[in-house]
């Protein structure tokens, strides 16, 4: 038997099999010169990011970049971690400089699209996903087989209510029917366009695929609650109004009121209250979304 492999090997293995917690434990064992290697910092940053500690991931990636300012993996993870910790501007600067170094990387371009999409979401402004979509298309053009690029394109389409979202999501599902990610995007695409019932099935499927992810489990729980009888009228209306039931109801309430249709107005208000009761009940039974 060869000499036992070091903790870096172990950490890489654990990261690849989706166990950032174990990877971090392995990295705790690293000593001496290995602590100075960019590989150590890249692994640590990636593990922290996967484990949901974006702030610490930013720090780790920056420490690694001190040793090699042009490291692909470090730049990539730094941008994503900055985005996840709410530093959109920094994320954008990081990904742009990374793309100057690696202009042909579909992965980086896809992550740039993600960052642009999040930058587009600003309060009190109309969101335009035009730039984000262009970046996602560019990523797919750079590598039509890149899993990341395809995912991001589908995700942004779903976020922006693009009609192609369902097609993109279906493509993802076809490539990997067991991908929880593909199910979430498909679910979101369908729910956004009013077909909540079908969307819920996909969310549930995603939770079944990976219950170890607390967010997916929460989504699954929520979907189950929405499938109960008391939520059915809501789902029906979502479908009829193509996902604009709340806005629609405000309009109805106002119109019936100004037209002095007292009975209808009362009915509309009663239904409005019902919607809120269901909403609050589901919220209470499934808790807040885990961060």
């Amino acid at each position, binding site marked *: *038997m*060869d000499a*036992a492999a070091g903790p870096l*090997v172990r950490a890489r293995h654990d990261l690849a*099999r*989706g*166990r950032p917690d174990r990877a971090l434990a392995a990295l705790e064992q690293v000593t001496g010169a290995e602590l100075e290697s960019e590989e150590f910092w890249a692994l640590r940053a990636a593990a922290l990011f996967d484990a949901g500690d974006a702030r610490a991931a930013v720090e780790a990636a920056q420490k690694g970049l001190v040793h090699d300012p042009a490291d692909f993996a470090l730049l990539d993870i730094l941008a994503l971690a900055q985005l996840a910790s709410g530093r959109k501007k920094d994320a954008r600067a990081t990904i742009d400089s990374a793309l100057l170094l690696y202009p042909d990387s579909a992965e980086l371009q896809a992550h740039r699209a993600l960052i642009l999409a999040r930058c587009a979401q600003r309060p009190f402004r109309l969101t335009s996903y035009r730039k984000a979509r262009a970046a996602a298309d560019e990523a797919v053009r750079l590598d039509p087989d890149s899993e990341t690029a395809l995912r991001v394109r589908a995700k942004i389409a779903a976020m922006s209510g693009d009609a192609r979202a369902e097609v993109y999501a279906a493509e993802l599902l076809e490539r990997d029917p*067991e991908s929880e990610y593909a199910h979430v995007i498909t679910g979101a695409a369908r729910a956004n366009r009013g077909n909540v019932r079908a969307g819920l099935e996909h969310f549930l499927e995603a939770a079944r695929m990976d*219950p170890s992810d607390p967010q997916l489990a929460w989504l699954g729980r929520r979907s189950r609650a929405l499938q109960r009888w008391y939520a059915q009228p809501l789902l029906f209306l979502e479908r009829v109004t193509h996902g604009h039931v709340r806005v629609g109801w405000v309009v109805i309430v106002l119109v019936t009121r100004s037209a002095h249709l007292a009975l209808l107005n009362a009915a509309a208000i009663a239904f409005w209250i019902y919607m809120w009761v269901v909403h609050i009940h589901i919220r209470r039974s499934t808790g807040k979304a885990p961060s």
Partner: protein
Amino acid sequence: MGRSHPHPAEHREGAELNVDRIAGLRAALTAAPDNHALRLMLAEELLNDGQAGEALTEYDLLLAAGQLDEHGLVAGGRAALAAGRHDRAQAFVEAAGATGAVNGISELKREINDALGLQHLVQVVKQGIGEDGAPLQPELELDSKPAVTFADVGGLVDVKKAINRTIILPFQRTDLYEKYKRGAGGGVLLFGPPGCGKTLLARATAGECGLPFSNVRIEEILDPYFGVSESNLHDAFVQARRFAPCVLFVDELDAIAFARRKFTGNVGRPLVDQLLQELDAIGADNENVLVLAATNAPWDVDEAMKRPGRFDRIVFVPPPDPPARERILTLHLAGRPSEDVDVTKIARRTPLFSGADLRALVERAVDLVIDDALERGEERPLATRDLEQALDSMRPSTLEWIATARNYVEFANQGGRYDEVAAFLVSREARAWKD
């Protein structure tokens, strides 16, 4: 491979005839050294003639050329044994293992063990020297006889029963199991939250049977170079077989046999396949290697591992219940100066604490007593209030695992695979901590 067996009658017609045949075969072989069928006949003749050493030379050549089938490998092993070359015999057994041959191999193994004496082997392991005088690979942990037994494991009555049924009894009462044609084989996979005694139980299983314990750990298997991890894994099993009967324990099974779906790396899959192969080989050979494995994440273990003949018993090792906690506390308090500690009370106040947590609790309490001793110069025994004080700053380490398990029970309990966990989750203790 087409080859003709010499008629048995021919061998008994006297030494001269044999000598003639042998000389004839040798002559033919000098003319056609690559004729493996001829060489095999020569080897068989030599073995039948009692010239084991000569036969072994021929078998070795055939082995090197990869020209031995199952039957030939066993015959080669016999020749080696007859020539007193245990190391070579072992080489034939290993070659048989590598090609997946089964017939007669376990019998040959037993002959090797008998010839050497297991005791001798265990001794060799202890000294860290292999049969051929070379030092054994230092990585593979092998206790000749673990000192722990089931008595050292608090609680877990059902788990102990399950291990006894599937592993210990078939080994100890081979006669009974053979008579009723109840195949032994198949390993036990222990799963549950961290620190609740899985590794301890595996060690204790070996202790119960008085067998050596060999621990396969991912750290010793993984290697960055292509193919080396697999060969490390193979070596670990080869070693275990060499020391059979023994208990082979695969710790953190999910790290070696992870589900392919989640894996994003490009290496790794061969490692899962290698483990499957090794398990199947052990199952087929019936070689008295008792296989146990443990994991915190059974959901991350490849489904193929759970098929019959591999890990067919999957046993939940829950956090200890109050009586078990009492027992564990008593075990860890034993040997330390203490004054009628109310373990029942402490056990009641530590729901969901793992065995490891309880040990840590005792150690913290001991620290408090030592602090006192240093401060005041009085060496008092450990008391209940020390444990209570230490408890104030502790939380069970099993909570995170339980939260994840709850999600699996809710969304991925196909075929009732986590029913045991589900039953535990609705227990009063498990619900008490639900936040």
